[in-house]
């Protein structure tokens, strides 16, 4: 029996992984489009706490209170994957962590004559990212269009 299948080894490896995650706060561990377990990763990495977890018709919402005062919500589909994240508060959460592979779409939005510092609406492939507000009160959300469970009202994702 190969040593790699030993449960002891798995536990040790998991322990090492957790330790690495703790030491490297920005180790890749995506949220949007990833399994619900990454919600816990978000919480651990951000030194945050889950304020509430609520089952709504067709999906589940975890509300995460960040130390910065910002509240983040992560929306989980019946298949167990996060299909939307939303935030509201004085500053944005770690969106590199929360958006995972989709982070780059926000980071590369171009400035144009019609830009101000109060609005962002990005639609790139499957991703929709929308944000508004002003200094000291920012809000926004990002979701994957193809992953929204049937019957979910977009207006409820905030």
């Amino acid at each position, binding site marked *: 029996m190969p040593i790699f299948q030993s449960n002891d080894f798995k536990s040790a490896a998991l322990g090492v992984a957790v330790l690495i995650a703790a030491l490297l706060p920005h180790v890749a561990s995506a949220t949007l489009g990833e399994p619900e377990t990454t919600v816990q990763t978000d919480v651990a990495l951000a030194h945050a706490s889950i304020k509430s977890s609520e089952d709504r018709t067709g999906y589940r919402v975890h509300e995460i209170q960040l130390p*910065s005062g910002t509240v983040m919500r992560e929306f989980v589909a019946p298949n167990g994957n996060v299909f939307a994240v939303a935030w509201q508060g004085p500053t944005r959460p770690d969106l590199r962590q929360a958006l995972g592979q989709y982070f780059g779409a926000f980071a590369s939005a171009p400035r144009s004559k019609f830009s101000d510092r109060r609005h962002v609406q990005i639609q790139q492939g499957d991703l929709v990212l929308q944000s508004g507000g002003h200094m000291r009160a920012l809000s926004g959300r990002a979701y994957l269009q193809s992953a929204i469970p049937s019957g979910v009202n977009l207006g409820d994702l905030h």
Partner: protein
Amino acid sequence: MVSMRALKMGLCALLCLSAIACGGSDGTSGGGTPPPPPANTANTASVIIDGGPSASSGSVNTLFTSVTVCVPGSTTSCQTIDHIQVDTGSYGLRLLAPVLTLTLPVETLASGGSLAECTQFVDGFSWGPIATADIQIAGETAKSVPVQVIGDSRFTNIPTECSGTGGTEEDTVSTFGANGILGIGPFESDCGDCDTATHGLYFACTTSCTDTTVPDNLQIPNPVTHFAVDNNGTIVVLPSVAAGGASNVMGSLIFGIDTQSDNASGTQTVLTVDDNAELLVMFNGQTFANSFIDSGSNGIFFADSSITTCTAPPSDPTSQIVNFYCPASTLTLPVTIQGMNGTMTNNLTFGVGNAITMLNDNPSFDAFPQLAGTLPAGNAGSFDYGLPFFYGKRVAIAVQGAMTTVGTGPYIAF
């Protein structure tokens, strides 16, 4: 007409009075030692809505002024910088390092390290150190004020906590769209509690930068609150603009409320705002509780799925024009704004024009009173009434705690 004439006469009388008062300061106007003359501050800066600095990609409905900064204590190491955006929705003076020719001293924390900030705007972030400068705007001065130097070449290692907040890095004139920004919102600083809590805003930098708390006196303030006089708020005065728009619209930025003859409160509507500088807007049968009036928003933004949005032109398929409204004909819509004090506006309406038609008809225009755009349902509860609100109005923004003849700040009055 009568009232207008009376107003003008009253204004004349005030000006004449103040001229006499100044003229009499040589001591000839009465017995005994005359009181010192009132500080003869020119408290009014001119403002303009134009296309922005040449190094930018242009702008619409964006208000600019000029600011003079000096190395603290110096009267010769000074620089006047144009195209500083006037923003009632943020706090603090921030300058783009590429246009700054002075070397301003960077603040140092007692715990060691230089102080830098990751300023978050909705569409991105700006990174740079906090330096101190003497500031002069019109005749108003503030000494040794913390300001941010955005894109400073001495601070190029942006912490991952900063870039991780996402959006565009706005550290050049081109990406920022201005040579700087003058945040004159109704609070004293850009952070409510950064003296006791970290928010990913302020960083202590040595070889690397880490999130830090900051004593209040080192944080970036609304610089108006640091003026020697006229420091309790500002008044933005802009002319009416034709429905189709205009270019190079000029107005005034008056400092102080009820501190001089030219900034007296009258009979305006006073709406107090909450801890987020927000108030209520009733529109289309709904109440939007997280609404705000904001010179830094370049249109009127709200959700109304019944209004047609613009279609991107084939020449620019990714144009952000798609986030603006393009109704077939101009709409006039009623809206009510309510302060936290319960006071409501009366008979207020706004126009929504066809954004593409307006922009195409007059490509050289940069002020559009009927430019309106969408706000996604995800920002439910918000009506963002931007610079078009200010056209044809005299809008006072009283800083938190300011006591004027018509109320106590934070409030907005017009």
